[in-house]
């Protein structure tokens, strides 16, 4: 072989100034050296970092790589198993036990039936935004309330209760607090959801959570499932809407094309998913020795999969660092791949199509209210990358 092996010692915590949409330079550089690099986990354990599209996809589809939380081998400490119901961090058959009852509730068809309701929610947000500004913070006026309201209605979480969980989820997904604060926010959300599950059991209403109480799942399991659905259902989409708007505003020709032709909306959503990859990295642990890209990953070793560099892999996407809403982005890994591929992706698609469309139609002169360098972004340590606040302005008519 003789090919030298690139080594990445720590995951970068910031992106290059002025390039908020591009993966950290160290990761792009690692990909340039090849799709797989040696890597040292934060706890000191040796691992691998996979940055190339084909290899990330093949590991995600390979049952020899486990998602089990307790197998994570990143430092000299025991990792506890995930709480019941948190199926993202489990393998089959446990994963399927939780995912299967949900699948029929999140089909393409069912999610499309929500279009009208999502249009209504979006229109209400835009009305309020128009009244309040300009300028406004697009995150609090648009990007957060739309997915929050939608997932609340779907799950049967009272929207008035959003104060009880929205900030906590923001805290434990935002990557900027101490472990103690993170645990406190996580525990508070769990407590809220425990009460909610009990309430649904006592008085079922017409929603997914109530329907699930009619299964053999325990209260504790339902709480774990609700936590995943709630956190994944709003934090990811909220950041796609805010960061996506920021990206469109920074690419005026793309924004103008999208505004001029509604038929480009679906493609624009897929391209923004690829280009931004807000769910950046996931980990898998080898259950046996596996050869990946000419290297042997030993049993028990944890690998980091970089979705954002995979989605910017020049061998898979031509000119990958260019946002091009007309490109064929199908096959991107923004929703992952393999058995854990996002359960709520069809909901996310409907929300993004409706919300981006309505936003560009309503505010033809929408623009940043501050210089782009001053936009407050989440750090790389966040599970989901995104924008903390996005001040925008527009010309008022008459």
């Amino acid at each position, binding site marked *: 072989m003789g090919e030298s092996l690139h080594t990445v010692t720590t995951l970068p915590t910031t992106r290059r100034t002025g390039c908020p949409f591009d993966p950290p330079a160290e990761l792009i550089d690692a990909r340039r050296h090849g799709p797989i690099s040696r890597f040292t986990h934060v706890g000191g354990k040796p691992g691998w970092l996979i940055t190339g599209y084909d290899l990330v996809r093949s590991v995600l*589809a390979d049952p020899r790589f486990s998602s089990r939380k307790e197998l994570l081998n990143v430092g000299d400490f025991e990792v506890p198993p995930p709480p019941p119901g948190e199926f993202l961090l489990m393998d089959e058959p446990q994963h399927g036990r939780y*995912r299967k009852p949900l699948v029929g509730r*999140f*089909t393409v*068809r069912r999610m499309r039936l929500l279009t009208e309701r999502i249009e209504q929610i979006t229109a209400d947000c835009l009305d309020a935004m128009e009244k309040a500004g300009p300028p406004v913070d697009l995150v609090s006026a648009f990007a957060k309330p739309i997915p929050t309201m939608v997932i609340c209605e779907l799950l049967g979480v009272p929207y008035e209760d959003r104060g009880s969980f929205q900030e906590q989820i923001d805290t434990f997904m935002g990557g900027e607090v101490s472990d103690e604060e993170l645990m406190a926010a996580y525990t508070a959300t769990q407590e809220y959801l425990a009460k909610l599950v009990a309430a649904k059991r006592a008085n079922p209403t017409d929603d997914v959570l109530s329907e699930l109480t009619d299964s053999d799942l325990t209260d504790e399991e339902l709480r774990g499932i609700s936590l995943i659905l709630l956190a994944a259902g709003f934090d990811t989409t909220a950041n796609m809407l805010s960061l996506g708007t920021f990206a469109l505003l920074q690419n005026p020709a793309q924004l103008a094309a999208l505004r001029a032709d509604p038929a480009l909306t679906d493609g624009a959503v897929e391209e923004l998913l690829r280009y931004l990859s807000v769910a950046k990295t996931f980990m898998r642990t080898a259950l046996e020795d596996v050869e990946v890209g000419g290297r042997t990953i030993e049993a028990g070793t944890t690998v980091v999969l970089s979705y954002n560099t995979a989605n910017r892999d020049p061998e898979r996407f031509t000119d990958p660092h260019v946002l091009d809403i007309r490109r064929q982005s199908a096959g991107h890994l923004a929703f992952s791949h393999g*058995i854990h*591929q996002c359960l709520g992706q*069809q909901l996310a698609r409907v929300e993004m199509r409706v919300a981006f469309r309505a936003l560009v139609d309503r505010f033809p002169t929408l623009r940043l209210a501050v210089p782009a360098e001053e936009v407050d972004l989440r750090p790389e340590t966040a599970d989901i990358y995104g924008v903390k606040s996005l001040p925008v302005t527009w010309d008022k008519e008459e």
Partner: protein
Amino acid sequence: MRTTRLRVDRERCIGAGMCALTAPEVFDQDPDDGLVLLLHAEPPTAHRAAARMAVGVCPSGAITLDEPEPTDS
């Protein structure tokens, strides 16, 4: 002459809906369990490219395609 023929494996399917999204004329999801429903095992020419793409994007490898070798290449 062999024709393009699709097969689906409901045991492998995880109900992500990529097939129904990508090739809605060829695939649907069961309204009860969300798993793949094959509408046309031998898709008409007009939908073959979409069906092929659906095979490629299926996250669980639940769809397979038998296709005759192209004769004009």
